[in-house]
């Protein structure tokens, strides 16, 4: 492989990986606090893209406004899911909540098929996202530059919220010891609600950028990115935000490089991603960063 192709593939990998990272953070935050794998996360990701799609197509809102509104709406959906499906089961065994999560996921997917229609829709991509740049033979679209940039900005905002605000402190406290935090007089439900809101907002942001990169949306589009992001969260060390970011990039780059070096295996690239998940679960279930940091948010 010549260097030019390698750089092209690396860019492809980083841009895919940073999207996985954004979705993975939502998984990891909820897990860090509730020890719950929120399987509906990938479907919130899907809803975010549909919100943006309808705001642009029907209400003709400018692009930045519809994206912001879509993210806000998804945050509300996230809080709603927690309120309706998970809060009543807070004291139930963890497996019940897990099964409920799977149920919520199926519900959102099938309700999506009924309400939004099963046929895919073309997503309107803004001009600055679709411009192509030629970097010495390696082609890169605007979206591949903007995705990592926006992801980094969102991550910085997230770290600020978690380490510099009161609600962030509460989240860290709940993640460390839920019972003690409750005894200290912290409103647990409120903290968890905010966690879902932040996670869902990031999923929606990831979803909108995903749709800009792969401009096709359908009600089942959240399933595979959701699984891959879950893999990324586990590989990075579930419960750890920095780990999820690294895991996302690792999974994205591996996925692309497998096709780059073994084109004949390209149809099986998803299988390789899940083989990595299994290897990590067997060999190092705590993931890349799982043990080094104690705090789990």
């Amino acid at each position, binding site marked *: *492989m*010549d260097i030019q*192709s390698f750089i*092209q*593939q690396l860019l*492809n990998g980083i841009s*895919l990986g940073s999207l996985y990272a954004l979705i993975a953070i939502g998984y990891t935050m909820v897990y860090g606090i509730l020890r719950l794998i929120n399987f509906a996360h990938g479907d919130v990701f899907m809803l975010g893209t549909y919100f943006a799609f309808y705001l642009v197509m029907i209400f003709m809102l400018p692009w930045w406004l519809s994206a912001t509104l879509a993210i806000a709406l998804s945050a509300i959906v996230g809080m709603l899911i927690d309120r309706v499906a998970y809060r009543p089961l807070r004291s139930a065994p963890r497996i019940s909540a897990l099964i409920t999560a799977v149920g919520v996921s199926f519900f959102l997917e099938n309700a999506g*098929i009924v309400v939004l229609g*099963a*046929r*895919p*829709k*073309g997503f309107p991509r803004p001009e600055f996202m*679709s411009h*192509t740049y*030629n970097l010495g033979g390696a*082609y890169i*679209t605007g979206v591949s530059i903007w995705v990592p940039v926006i992801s980094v900005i969102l991550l910085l905002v997230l770290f600020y919220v978690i380490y510099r605000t009161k609600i962030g402190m509460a989240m860290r406290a709940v993640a460390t010891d839920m019972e003690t935090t409750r005894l200290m007089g912290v409103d647990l439900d409120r903290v968890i609600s905010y966690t879902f809101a932040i996670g869902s907002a990031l999923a929606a942001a990831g979803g909108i950028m*995903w749709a800009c*990169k*792969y*401009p*096709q949306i*359908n009600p*089942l*589009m959240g399933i*595979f*990115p959701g699984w891959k992001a879950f893999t990324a969260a586990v590989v990075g060390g579930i419960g750890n935000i920095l780990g999820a970011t690294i895991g996302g990039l690792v999974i994205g780059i591996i*996925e*692309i*490089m*497998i*096709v*780059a070096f073994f*084109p*004949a295996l*390209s*149809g*099986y*690239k*998803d299988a390789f991603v899940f083989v990595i998940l299994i290897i990590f679960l067997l060999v190092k279930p705590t993931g890349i960063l799982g043990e080094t940091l104690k705090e789990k948010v």
Partner: protein
Amino acid sequence: MKRLLIYSIVLTLLLSLGITASCAEPIKIGLNLEMTGGTAAYGQMGYEGLQLIQELVKPEVLGRPVQFVLVDNKTDRVEAANATSRLIEKEHVVAIIGPMISGNMLAAGPIAEKYQIPIIGPSTTNPLTTQGKKFVFRACFIDPFQGTIAAKFAYETLRAKKAAILSDINQDYCVALGKFFKQEFERLGGKVVSETYLKTGDQDMTAQLTAIKRARPDVIYFPNYYTEIAIAARQARDLGLTQPILSGDGADAPELISIGGKAVEGLMHTAFWHEKTAVTEIGKKYLRAYKAKYGKAPNAFGALAADSYLILLDAIKRAGSTDPKKIRDAIESTKNLQVVTGPVTIKNGDAIKSIVLRRVKNGQFEFLTVVNP
């Protein structure tokens, strides 16, 4: 004696009631369609065509009304097989239309064969679907023909010497069509310089396309379904690939253009039908009615589903019975029947039909040429 008379009158009345009831009892035709999932557009277009043809041709045969029973197979092999069993065992259909795609027919066909219920795939082009089966039919041409025509077109008309193929490894249709294209292209003296795969539902094909770019082909062949073609075309153009793109009948869906946008402009593909090739009376009627009802350009999948229905209706009429075995024999002896896409003859379960070449121009499918078998 009087009582006996009354009894016998009541009995006769009841019997005659029973007979009229069985006369009016509908003939059920099962629809096993991709209403959701990866190829939902085909199933939904097929269903549109079936609803329309029932409005145009009175849904009645042998003096009994014809009724559809629709089951969604979710573009999934297991669901397609289950849908077939359900239609036969629970709904007692006399015949089945669908699935639309070959992979699903390969799952559904053997079940229909086992129960000896005729099943017609409107657009199942893979040759294996009908091979060795007595009860499995198709209303379209087969992929060896389609792949050959595409390869000839690439080599002779586009003067391509090197081709790249990116096909969907999850779909029997896509993998086989890619192989048929390759065989013919290399037989003509061309060379396939890159063969890569994707999987149904994949969003990122940049890695495969970067590999294709390195191989510097003269033409790119995407023998896939519309969503994957549209995404691959966009990413190919984003990566600076400017070669002409060729596809098969899978490209025929409005989604190709709504998702592909400018990137699919100039894409050429082999297709079942173009409205310009409508020659039969019923075909012209269908065109007008389709535009009036749905307000958009008609597509091949709806037309082929309507064809399957007309073939079935004609077969039941000629069989003079709803016995599935007699219907099967009547379908097999279909000759020069006037259906929506033209006259059709069935041989060994396959329909003999011509191929249309089309090109996307200004967001519309434009007619290029027609090739007869």
